[in-house]
């Protein structure tokens, strides 16, 4: 075995630093990646050119293009239009709903980002849940897992697979084709769906969370929207006499009542009034809160409750405004911040009414709750203001508010450019990055989306994460560190059958992806496993493929973006993911290894 050199030690140290920083999250993952881009050339482990080659790699360009294409499809409502027929096909049965929507989400996820596919279907799933009275917790997890599994159907379905061919280049190994993984991916999706259909009642939480009772299912279908009622009140002519001024904020603090709208004489209505607005005499106000709190407020403050909405009927009838449930999006600027810091009231004039997280509805001091991905926030405002907020992309809205800014007339163009890109790859064997970027460019030129919208849609965190870890992979291979580690591992485990080696690689990839990102796991493990496979006389391409697939095996913890997104609306707890995720993860490895054996005879 080659002796350990100083360069190898430095590379191992840098890997350790990267893994440590990923785990402790002292800095963001993309910052860790940029650290690698800078540290590696300074330590002379890679050349300066190699340090930044990631930014121009085929994988990174492909991912940028895939994201833009996905954004274009989203903008034209092409995907939205698929929702209605799928729901019709699914009918009224819980199993059929899971099967059809899971297949649809998996299919979309095969050429779009998993999180995009998952987010797109979230509102529809919530509507189905309400209509068919199926607990959301029974639907979201199977469908969310299908979105993740769908990423294994094509080579552009997820970042690790997009990255795979680039990582094989140093070894002069034949790259994989766009649909080389499709049989394996389809088998994984089918087995995942089958597992939930057959064993869902054992592995899924009952009615919305690990400890919830089944009879709470109706409330959990719309926990936020059911957290209060809209009521109209009137203040008497002597309301302000002989008392301290009563502000909108006072009603919130004392009675947990949110003032949605207020009249100002002579006939002006203010929607989402600022917190320091005074409640005057002889005015009408539209509030939201629990009925018992409204009654308590009316009694203490001497207000008159109206039986029906009169003055604010137009607002309630959604001509001008309404309530929406918005979920904190993955990588949202709101993550870790409070609503007070976000200052939605002043910036967008929308009123946050309640927050829903892990089965609990919070109505008090919601301005001070640090938000996490998947938290659902009930918002009220005019549609114009909610649209402005939606454009910020800090929330995913479960009901569309932005219909005016969709471009359904461009749907044909969007579809055309997608088909063209795929034809270029499959039919003309043109490089994946070139084909996809052609499709993306076509969408911009035909104004499916503007260039600025294209830039805004790109998730730069993923791009820099990829670009920054690629040089670490290069360093691992170039210095012989990968070979050294591979030999060390093989000396420890001894001679094993190829199927056993591939299984071990699969398990290793699964563990790594839970701890560091899927991209990080892929970049670090591919050079290692290729060397291991070469030393053990096993097909190195298969070893790399196992890594590319198994780094999507992220079900046990809600660390994957899709799981984080569905956690809040589904009312799931970490234990729910551990239970279902363990079963699916084991099934994933078994099916993956069997399919690789079957198709490639590895």
């Amino acid at each position: 075995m080659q002796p350990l050199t100083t360069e190898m030690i430095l590379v191992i140290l840098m890997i350790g630093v990267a893994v440590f920083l990923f785990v402790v999250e002292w800095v963001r993952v993309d910052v860790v990646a940029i650290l690698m881009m800078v540290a590696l050339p300074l330590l002379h482990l890679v050349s300066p050119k190699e340090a930044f080659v990631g930014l121009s790699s085929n994988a990174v360009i492909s991912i940028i293009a895939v994201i833009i294409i996905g954004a274009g499809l989203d903008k034209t409502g092409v995907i939205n239009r698929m929702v209605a027929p799928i729901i019709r096909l699914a009918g009224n049965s819980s199993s059929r709903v899971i099967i059809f929507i899971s297949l649809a989400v998996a299919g979309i996820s095969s050429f779009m980002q998993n999180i995009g596919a998952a987010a797109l279907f979230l509102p529809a799933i919530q509507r189905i849940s309400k209509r068919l009275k199926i607990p959301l917790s029974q639907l979201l997890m199977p469908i969310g897992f299908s979105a993740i599994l769908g990423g294994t159907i094509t080579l552009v379905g997820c970042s690790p697979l997009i990255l795979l061919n680039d990582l094989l280049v140093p070894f002069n190994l034949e790259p994989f084709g766009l649909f080389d993984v499709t049989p394996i991916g389809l088998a994984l999706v089918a087995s995942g769906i089958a597992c939930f259909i057959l064993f869902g009642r054992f592995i899924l939480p009952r009615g919305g969370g690990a400890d919830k009772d089944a009879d709470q299912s109706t409330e959990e279908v719309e926990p936020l929207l059911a957290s209060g009622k809209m009521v109209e009140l009137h203040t008497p002519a002597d309301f302000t006499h002989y008392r301290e001024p009563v502000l909108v904020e006072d009603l919130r603090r004392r009675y947990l009542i949110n003032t949605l709208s207020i009249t100002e004489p002579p006939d002006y209505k203010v929607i989402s009034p600022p917190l320091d607005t005074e409640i005057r005499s002889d005015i009408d106000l539209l509030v939201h809160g629990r009925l018992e709190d409204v009654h308590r407020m009316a009694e203490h403050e001497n207000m008159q409750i109206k039986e029906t909405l009169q003055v604010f009927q137009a607002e309630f009838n959604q001509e001008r405004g309404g309530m929406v449930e918005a979920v904190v999006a993955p990588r949202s600027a709101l993550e870790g911040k409070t609503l007070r810091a976000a200052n939605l009231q002043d910036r967008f004039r929308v009123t946050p009414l309640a927050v829903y997280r892990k089965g609990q509805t919070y109505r008090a001091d919601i301005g001070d709750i640090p938000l996490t991905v998947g938290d659902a926030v009930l918002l009220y405002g005019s549609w114009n203001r909610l649209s402005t907020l939606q454009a910020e992309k800090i929330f995913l809205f479960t009901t569309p508010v932005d219909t005016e800014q969709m471009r359904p007339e461009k749907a044909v163009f969007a579809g055309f450019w997608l088909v063209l890109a795929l034809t270029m790859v499959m039919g003309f064997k043109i490089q994946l990055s070139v084909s996809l970027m052609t499709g993306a460019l076509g969408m911009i030129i035909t104004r499916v989306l503007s260039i600025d919208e294209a830039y805004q849609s790109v998730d730069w965190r993923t791009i820099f994460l990829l670009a920054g870890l690629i040089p670490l992979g290069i360093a691992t291979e170039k210095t012989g560190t990968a070979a050294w580690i591979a030999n060390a591992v093989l000396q420890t485990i001894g001679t094993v059958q190829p199927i056993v080696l591939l299984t071990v690689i699969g398990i290793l990839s699964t563990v790594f992806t839970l701890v560091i990102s899927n991209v990080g796991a892929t970049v670090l493990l591919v050079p290692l496993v290729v060397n291991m496979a070469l030393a053990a006389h096993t097909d190195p391409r298969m070893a790399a493929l196992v890594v590319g697939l198994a780094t999507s095996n992220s079900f046990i913890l809600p660390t994957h973006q899709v799981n984080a997104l569905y956690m809040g609306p589904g009312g799931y707890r970490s234990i729910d993911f551990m239970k279902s995720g363990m079963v699916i993860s084991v099934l994933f490895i078994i099916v993956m290894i069997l399919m690789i054996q079957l198709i490639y005879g590895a």
Partner: protein
Amino acid sequence: MAIITISRGSYSRGKEVAEAVAARLGYECISRDVLLDASKRFNIPEVKLIRAIHDAPTLLQRMGHDRSAYMAYIRSALTWRVREDNVVYHGLAGHILLQGVSHVLKVRIIADIENRAAAEAAREGISLKKARELLVKDDEERRRWSHSLYGKDPWDSHLYDLILHVKKLRTEDAVEFICQAANLPQFHATEASRQKLEDLALACRIKAAILDVDKDADITCEYGNLIVYSQAGERAVRQLEKRAAALLGEIPAINNLEVHEGKAPAGAGA
């Protein structure tokens, strides 16, 4: 009308003054009754509560949490008792346990060590020197106690509204000053200050009820809307949520009770 707390060192005639003030104003006079209340309600031997409120903590005690738990019980009993106003409390730490309530008149009675020693020597039948030593030790214990639990020095004059040095002042003079201060409008209970006291009492009651789950939880209460802030982890939060659901049904004064994971806003919390 008002709540009067009288803090004093031992043998400073504080008890005498407190009882005279209560008699003059027609207020209830309480001290040890609070400890009896707490003992009965929370099933803690009174002697443990007395030690908690009197002795400075040892090193081992500082590492444990029992003392702060006992203080939570005492505070809960005290705040619940004084909700009705018109109370004179001359137990320990009233100025700390009732801080934040505007209609509390915080009085401190101080006396010369020599006069105090003479009073103790006469009462206990011991020498002056011995009496002086005991008083110095007792004062030091209380100081350390106040520091250890609340980070405050009981001799800090900023903690009080009125400090009376009973050297030249007679008991009747001290009583006169205190009664005049109590009648000032700034020490009259208002609707807002009563609400604040109600909220404090409710928060302390909930704190006492959840101590076994999370001793370090902060609780805020405003108009009967309570928030429990816990940093004890997800499991503790789930347990607190179950406890909160039970308490909601038991205590009518609670309008809303939520458990939030994390720290309470600065300056808030019981």
